[in-house]
């Protein structure tokens, strides 16, 4: 039986996240892989809530809580300053939510990626503005209930990985707290690369997704196994590698355990399935082309 290695905890316990929070779990896994030798930037999001109020914080490493939309240039400013000080061996990692990445932070993130700033940017995506309640963001998938899309979201989830790939930065990857070894490998790989590195973590939210407190890991697993959130890497914006061949479970398995999809009509489920299948075909094709061009 494969045993998972006992991790060295960087984050202290006593954090302010909701019980069973998938985002807090993801943060904890990211920090285990980063280790103590780093500086972390946090912006308003559930990451900041989890981190804790003055004078206590959970992160355990030097950190900075900046404004909502500027996680990326903040991290870049620190990183460039550290290099000027001769401390180039200290990586800087920025945590942001989906709001701070897909919406209000997209411009500043794009600017950093374009300049290939030397930071690791981790988007903890719980698919809505959860820190302030449950409000729709451009990371909210189609048909999803939120407090500001009560009949179901009419817009589609932004393809953030495609957007990041278009910048041709060295490394972008998706990761899931249900696959901790894969997540750890990706963070460690990111640490070894110079330039802008982007990690997209889908983090189930018990409150906003209306799932039971013990369901976050299962839901995250189902998101991967249904291909709703495949695990893959993009290097230099062109080379696609699929890290895990899922079982291609039907999307119902993922949707039926979440209260935020309780209102779904059968035809909407079909549309979701079709879109998932189409995206997967596209991703597979890109991965195949990547192998060919490698040869």
């Amino acid at each position: 039986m494969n045993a998972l290695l006992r991790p060295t905890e960087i984050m202290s316990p006593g954090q302010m996240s909701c019980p069973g929070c998938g985002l807090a779990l993801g943060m904890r896994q990211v920090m285990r892989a980063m280790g103590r030798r780093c500086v972390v930037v946090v912006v308003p999001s559930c990451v900041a809530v989890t981190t804790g109020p003055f004078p206590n914080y959970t992160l355990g490493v030097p950190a900075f809580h900046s404004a909502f939309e500027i996680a990326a240039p903040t991290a870049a400013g620190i990183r460039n300053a550290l290099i000027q000080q001769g401390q180039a061996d200290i990586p800087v990692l920025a945590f942001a939510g989906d709001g701070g990445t897909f919406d209000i932070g997209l411009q500043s993130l794009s600017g950093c990626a374009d300049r290939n700033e030397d930071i690791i940017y981790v988007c903890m995506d719980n698919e809505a503005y959860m820190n302030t309640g449950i409000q729709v963001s451009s990371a909210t998938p189609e048909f999803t209930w939120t407090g500001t899309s009560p009949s179901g979201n009419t817009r589609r989830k932004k393809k953030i990985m495609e957007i990041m790939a278009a910048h041709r930065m060295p490394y972008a990857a998706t990761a899931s707290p249900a696959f901790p070894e894969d997540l750890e490998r990706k963070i460690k790989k990111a640490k070894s690369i110079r330039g802008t590195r982007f990690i997209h973590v889908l983090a189930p939210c018990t409150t906003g997704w209306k799932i039971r407190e013990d369901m976050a890991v299962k839901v995250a697993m189902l998101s991967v196994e249904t291909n709703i959130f495949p695990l893959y890497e993009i290097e230099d914006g062109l080379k696609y590698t699929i890290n895990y061949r899922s079982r291609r479970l039907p999307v119902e398995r993922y949707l039926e355990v979440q209260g935020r999809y309780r209102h779904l009509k059968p035809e909407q489920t079909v549309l979701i399935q079709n879109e998932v299948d189409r995206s997967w075909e596209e991703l597979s094709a890109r991965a195949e082309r990547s192998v060919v061009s490698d040869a």
Partner: protein
Amino acid sequence: MRKFITGNTAVAEAVRLCRPDIIAAYPITPQTPIYEKLSDWEDSGKIKGKMMRTESEHSAMAACLAASLTGVRTFTATSSQGLALMHEMLHFASGLRTGVVMAAVNRTLAAPWAFWSDQTDTLSQRDTGWMQVYCEDNQETADMIIQAFKIAETVLLPMMVILEANFISHFMEPVDIPSQKDVDAFLPAVALPRRFDLENPGYVSPTVTQKQFEAYRRRTSDAMTHALAVIADVDEAFGKAFGRSYGIVEITGAEDAELVLVTTATITSTARVAVKELREEGVKVGLCKLRLFRPFPVQAVKEALKNIPKIAVLERNISQGREGIFCSELKSALINCTRPPQVQGYLAGIGGTNVDPPLIKKVVHHALALKTFSDGPVWMGGDA
């Protein structure tokens, strides 16, 4: 070394001499020559620091303040729309007690669109907790850049060195550029606190309680008060090192003046000519130059003006719904005098219209003739 250069170039030269570690900026007319010159020098290695060519001014300030917190010397330059876009980050930079120095080129704030000199852009950042000094000419601008790094890094508050579009930014004047050796002696290596220390990790800028917030605001307020002394001392030291000092407030011809004209920035240099002519014509008028705006030098202003019967304030800005901002600030500084002078506000040059000596003389005559001082400003207009 003496050079015949624009104000923008003077800023760039001064910044270079201060050995900045991080420069983050975004182009905007009329700041762009500063940005380009610094970029050029960074590229060629004349500036050893790193230039971040950010995608917006908001990001530029975010990067600067983060770098300043890391403990390095940081600089940015902007104007008008860019400064307005930075607004949120300006509060952050002062709230976090950074030592960022900025060159702010006064330019009209849309709307409507226009590109000439106007002080509203920097004045509307009055309450952000930044120190502000308004420069009269290219030399003062260059000198204040050097002084600003020293002041900001001592007081732990960011500082804006303000120069007008066109009149300073693009006009050429003779400027004394000091030697690197002399600047190094005056401004040693940066010693800002390093907030991200692996040996002593901490989380900068968490959420605080009401009482805690109030306490931090109180400390910043105390620091602003303390800054007055620091600014005066730095100015004096600068004078000793480079032969030029500017004082907190400059006042001339006040001994027998019936009226003192208060001006700022480039209007001051034109006013010097007007006042000289008026004196020659027998008018008992004095001239007071306001340069330091934040912290506002209440005592120095009171000292200079408390016995003057009439004051006319001439400025290139308006706070809609009231009057020119320097005028309001001046009035509030003088309100507790035993016999506060009468103050009349005058607006001219808004939008970058020309303020020439005849116009200034008109202001003085108008003020002298006043029976009743009005609470609102008098619009003088100007030629394009």
